[in-house]
Structure formats: structure tokens, C-alpha cells
């Protein structure tokens, strides 16, 4: 006892619900950071490309995109291993849409990164890159769908859990 409170044994850790622990897992935190960097960087590029014809942070966007791909693949494999099999519920549907949108975002991102790689890395040139407007538009909308459905999925899961506790 110390100051009226029972002393905690060294091998006892405070209880944290499994969800709270999972939300603080290093891989998920890394994924949120990469997603945040990509989202903010993407919005900046979207705005500046249109308003000023510039693409600030294009290289960081590509490199963080590669990191995001790796982190997302590992996370999604683990996540599906935990939540499988499929259930006909809103949180599952939103998660599936989010996953499809993420796959398409990354795929269109790599299509856009190809001319960037040829011009900036192979040719070491600073010329404007002729990105496909269709792929660029698809990448923008898919990115926004990722954010939309990931947040909606998370909201649905947390609300469902809160309702279950009541």
C-alpha cells in the first residue's frame, strides 16, 4: 500500500479493452500517419496543380504511397484474418467499399507514378509530366472514397460496439 492505494504488482498491466489496444497498435498508427500524409499531400497537389500549375511534394507523395501500400497490405491481411468470414452488416459493407477504393487508389497511383519515375528518376528532368487526366481524376476520387468509407467504417464499428455495451 502507498498513500492508501494498493501497490500494483510489476507484472500486472492496466486493463485496456481489446479494441482500444488495437487502435493503438503500432502498425495501425503508422497506417493512419501515412494515410494522413497522403491525404493532405494529395489535397495540396490537387489544389496547387489546378490553381498554380505546380505540384509541391510530389516526390514525398510517391514515396509515402509506396510505404502506405506495404503497411496497408500487412494490416489488411491481419485485419481480415481477425474479422473473417464475411457478414451481411453495414460495417462489413463499408469496410469492403473502403478496401476496394484503397486498391483502386493505389493502382491508379502507380499508373501515375510510372511517368513520374521515367521523367524524374530515369531522365532526371524537371519538365512538366503529362499525367493522364482520366487516371488523375480517378485517383482523386478514389482517394476521397478511401477517406470517406474508412471513416464511415470506423464510425459504424465504434457505434456498434458502444450500442452493444449499453
Amino acid at each position: 500500500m502507498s498513500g492508501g492505494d494498493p501497490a500494483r504488482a510489476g507484472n500486472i498491466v492496466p486493463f485496456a479493452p481489446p479494441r482500444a489496444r488495437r487502435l493503438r497498435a503500432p502498425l495501425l498508427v503508422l497506417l493512419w500517419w501515412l494515410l494522413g500524409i497522403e491525404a493532405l499531400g494529395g489535397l495540396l497537389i490537387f489544389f496547387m496543380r489546378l490553381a498554380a500549375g505546380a505540384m509541391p511534394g510530389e516526390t514525398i507523395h510517391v514515396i509515402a504511397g509506396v510505404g502506405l501500400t506495404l503497411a496497408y497490405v500487412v494490416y489488411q491481411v491481419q485485419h481480415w484474418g481477425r474479422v473473417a468470414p464475411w457478414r451481411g452488416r453495414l460495417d462489413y459493407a463499408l469496410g469492403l467499399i473502403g478496401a476496394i477504393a484503397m486498391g483502386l487508389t493505389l493502382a491508379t497511383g502507380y499508373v501515375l507514378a510510372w511517368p513520374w519515375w521515367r521523367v524524374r528518376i530515369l531522365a532526371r528532368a524537371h519538365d512538366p509530366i503529362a499525367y493522364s487526366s482520366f487516371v488523375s481524376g480517378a485517383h482523386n476520387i478514389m482517394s476521397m472514397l478511401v477517406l470517406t468509407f474508412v471513416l464511415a467504417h470506423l464510425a459504424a464499428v465504434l457505434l456498434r460496439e458502444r450500442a452493444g455495451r449499453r
Partner: protein
Amino acid sequence: MNIPPFSVFSAISELFVTAGVFYVIRRNWTRQPFPFALFLTVSLFEALVNVMYMANRSAAASVPGTKEALSTGMKLAYAGHGLLSLVAYLVFVVLGVLAYQEQKAGRWFFRERPALTWTFLVIWVISIGSGEAIFTLRYLV
């Protein structure tokens, strides 16, 4: 000036989508069952048709040497409208999902959060209004 048919379609359909958004919120506000099918239809249509169209137009307008010669003000308007549309769409879907889940537990999400609801509606109206204004300035004036 020759107006692209899809621009006309998008400008008109945005008004119907806005009506759908207001209807979804009004139902919740008046404590009536959440129209999930309409919410889903409006969300998917807005994403796959209107936001996709806006993203494509923005991407096309920013290609170096594009045929579309835009003034700096119009470029800023395009960029601002594009960002706002994307954010407004994201917020609508997330709030709709929350409202749907809350209603299953007997709570009325929008009714119980008037400040959030009105803020969202103002943002949505600005987003749609700016798109209609750009369409008018670009093609009709």
C-alpha cells in the same frame, strides 16, 4: 459557346442530389425512418457521376498546354469548389452512416445535433452553389 452535355447533366443532377440530401436529413429531423436506400443511391450517384466528373474536369483543366484557357480567378474557383465538394461528400456519407446507426438505437442524430446539421447544410449549399456559379460563369455569361 458549346456546352458539354455532361456538364449540363451534372449541373442539373446536382440539384436533385441536393434535394435527396435535404430529404434524408429532414426525415431524420422529423423522427421518421432513415431512408437508407435513398441515402445509398444519392451517395453512390454523387461519387461515381458528379464528383468523378468534377475530378476529371479539374484534372483536364490542369494539364499543361490544355485547350481550356482559364483565368487565375476561375482556376482558384475550380480548385476551391473541387476541394469543398470532396469534403462535403465525405462528411455527408460519414454523418449519414452515423445517423443510420443511431436511429437503430432509437436516437435521431441530426435532430439531436442542430449545430452540426446546420453547419453541414451550409457547407453543402456553398459546395453546390459554387459549382452552379462556375457553370453559369463558364458557359452562360
